Structure formats: C-alpha cells, structure tokens
C-alpha cells in the first residue's frame, strides 16, 4: 500500500465505532431510566414507537404468520430503501459483526494467511453469490416450515446486541459469544470474510436490493493505470480493476482510498 489517501476510512471507522458504542450504551442508559432511544439493531425506537426493524425479522414474521402489520412493514422498509439507495453499505458502515470480521482479517494477516492478493476467479465469484442467495432462500423456507424465525437464532448482529443486553440486565455473559466465536474461527481458518461473503442472510437481502443506479464503486478508465492495487486490498474478492463490482460489494471504499490515481469513486451515476 503506497499512496493511501484516507478519504473514506476515518469516517467509516468513526460511524462503525459510534454504532457499536451506541449498542453498548443503550441498555445502560435505559437501566438509568434515560429512554430517549431504545432497542438494538434488530429494532430501534422510543418507548412509544418503532422507527427501524430488521427487514429479515419482518420478512420471517410475514412468512410465518401470513399477516401484514402496517407498523412492521413501514419500519422494516427503512433499511430496504437504504439498501436500494446505498447498496450493501449497511454491512461495512453500520453492522456490528463487520468490526469483528475486520479484526479477524487482521488476525489472518498476523498468522500470515492474508496473502491471497488475487481476486476470486469469475467462476468462484459466481458460485459465492449463488451460495449467498441460496442460503437466504433456504433459511426463509426453513422459517416458513418450522414456524419460528430461524435466522434470528444464528444472526451474529442480534447476538452481539443481545450480549450487551444480557450483560447489562442479567449481569452475566451469555452464550451469545459462541456464535461470534464460531464465525471468527471460520473466517480466520477457512474462508476470508466467509460469513459476510457466502452466508449472511441480512447482507444477501441488501445485496439483492442494490441495483445499477444505487451507490457503487465506479471506475474511470481514463485515469486507471491498471496497477491492481484495488484488487489487492479488496477483502470481499471483488475486482474493481475489471469493473467486476457486484452485489457482495459492501461499499467500504477501501479500494477508493487505496487508488493512487483517483480512478475509482463512489457514485450513483452509471458512467463518468
């Protein structure tokens, strides 16, 4: 990494850290009867109303009960609309699991496993995207058949938030860390960013919501010198150099920051 411009990463780290701190602080503030904001990343609101609900939880509820609740529909559509506009930006800018996955990436680097600078081959890349969508579909079918929201049991985002709630209210460390531990061990030993790239149903939904006009890393071919730095730094196996930026791209903008010639930028426009 030669010329690292640091355009987006400081802001991204700031937002990530403040969301994690918020998730730790909300149970404490509510314990002290300061209830301006309540909830976790599964559902956020005040003591009177709900602003945002996890769309995966809402879809499972709709599938199981076959009833549409207006408040649930409106609060769940907030993050879906966010994904329509900003693509999978929820993952790298808001998600609490992403912070731990990036720590896992660092551990991979220390263990000397992070040296695969090649992007995924097109075949492997297509297969990864298929696994991601099949896992989401399969989990939704499982929820429909069993009548329980199965994704909520394995969701690391909810588990981390529940870990803070249980720690604050029950004063004990729950089993929630098991899920985080399994995912971290899998990501360190088996596949880099394996959960986010191949399995996460939440990310798969947001990826499926993004389209050609939503926020995306776009390459200006006249500025590009083809150094391949962007491909080397991408943790998700995308290849901005070959204009292959798909639905698994989380808009983390690491490639934009690493580009020495300003050839890459985040924009809504298709060309230019």
């Amino acid at each position, binding site marked *: 990494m030669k010329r690292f411009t640091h355009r987006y990463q400081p802001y991204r780290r700031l937002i990530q850290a403040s969301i994690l701190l918020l998730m730790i602080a909300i149970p404490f503030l509510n314990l002290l009867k300061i209830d301006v904001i309540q909830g976790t990343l599964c559902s956020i609101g005040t003591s009177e109303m709900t602003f945002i*609900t996890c769309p995966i*939880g809402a879809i499972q509820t709709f599938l199981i009960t076959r009833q549409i609740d207006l408040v649930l529909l409106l609060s769940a559509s907030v993050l879906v609309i966010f994904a329509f506009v900003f693509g999978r930006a929820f993952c790298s800018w808001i998600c609490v699991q992403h912070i731990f996955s990036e720590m896992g990436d660092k551990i991979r680097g220390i263990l000397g496993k992070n040296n695969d600078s090649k992007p995924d081959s097109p075949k492997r890349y297509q297969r990864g995207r298929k696994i991601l969508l099949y896992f989401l579909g399969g989990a939704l079918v499982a929820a429909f058949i069993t009548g329980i929201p199965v994704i909520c*049991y394995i969701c690391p985002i909810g588990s981390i938030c529940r870990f803070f709630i249980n720690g604050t209210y029950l004063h004990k460390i729950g089993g929630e860390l098991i899920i985080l531990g399994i995912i971290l061990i899998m990501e360190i030993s088996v596949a880099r960013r394996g959960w986010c790239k191949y399995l996460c149903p939440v990310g798969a939904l947001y990826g499926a919501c993004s389209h050609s006009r939503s926020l995306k890393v776009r390459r200006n071919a006249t500025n590009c010198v083809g150094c391949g730095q962007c491909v080397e730094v991408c943790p998700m196996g995308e290849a901005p150099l070959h204009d292959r930026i798909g639905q698994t791209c989380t808009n983390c903008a690491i490639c934009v920051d690493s580009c020495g010639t300003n050839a890459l930028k985040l924009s809504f426009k298709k060309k230019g």
Partner: protein
Amino acid sequence: MFDFIQNLFKTLPAVHLRPPGARDESGLLARCIKCGRCVEVCPYQSIFLAPYSQWILYGTPLIDPLKQPCYLCMKCPPVCPTGALKPVTKAESNMGLAKVIEETCLSYQDTLCNLCYRHCPLKGKAITLDEELRPVIINEGCVGCGVCLYVCPTESRAITLNANGRKI
C-alpha cells in the same frame, strides 16, 4: 406451520411467566425476533431474555416472579415491533392464574396477614378478603402477574401460579 418441531425442543423453564399480552407459545415463538425492546422498556427489570439452555425458547422474554414480578405497567406490549406481545389493557393481560394454598397461608392459620391483597396491582379485582379477612382469589379477575407470590412472607410461598396452563 408444523408445531411438532416446536414441541420437540420445548423444555419449559420451571418458574417463569410470559410478559403481559403475550400470545400463546407457538404464536410468540413465531413472532419474537429477539430484539430485546421489552427488556429495555421494563422499568422494574422484570423481563429478561431466555438463555441458550432453553433451546427453542432462546431469546424470548420471560419473567421470574420470585425474583421480580410484573407490576402491570403495560409498557412492553406497545414496543414489540412484530406483535408477539399484543397491546392489551391490564385486565386482559392473561399471564396466568394464582391460587392460595390454605394449608400454609398465614391468614388461614389465624394470623392477620393481607400482604397479597394490599400489593395486588388490580386492587380488589383479583384478590378479595372474606369475612374472616382471609385472601380469596377471584378467578375471573386474576391475570397472574405474580406480585402476590413475590410478597408472600411464608417460607414456601402460600400461593401457586399457573402460568397459562403451565404449572409453576
């Protein structure tokens, strides 16, 4: 859809209630997304999330009336985003049914004690005193919040609570 899968894993906790307005077990399991909003809104810290040891019930809200009963402030049903807890009034919050054990109740042993009557959040609609000042549960009025169980001064608690068909 197929309730047998839920029944397969159902290992009910020994001493627990559901929050007021909760649907029946399969309806609650179907809707609860384990967000913890009810835990955070409860001003008495009565509600907690079921631990992993409860398997299929993991993450769903529970109340332990021996530690902290429900005082029927009715703040938790409106915050539930998926309607696992229905917004209901105090009298409709069907959580269970209390029953006085006359063998151990102090009032039935000629000692004056009406703690359960005085602390009942439904004020005379769920527990009344008969002509000898002994507590009597009104089955139609009692919602099973567990306050009487919590305040009972006897060692073994002279009140049992039947939590919606589940014996406590």
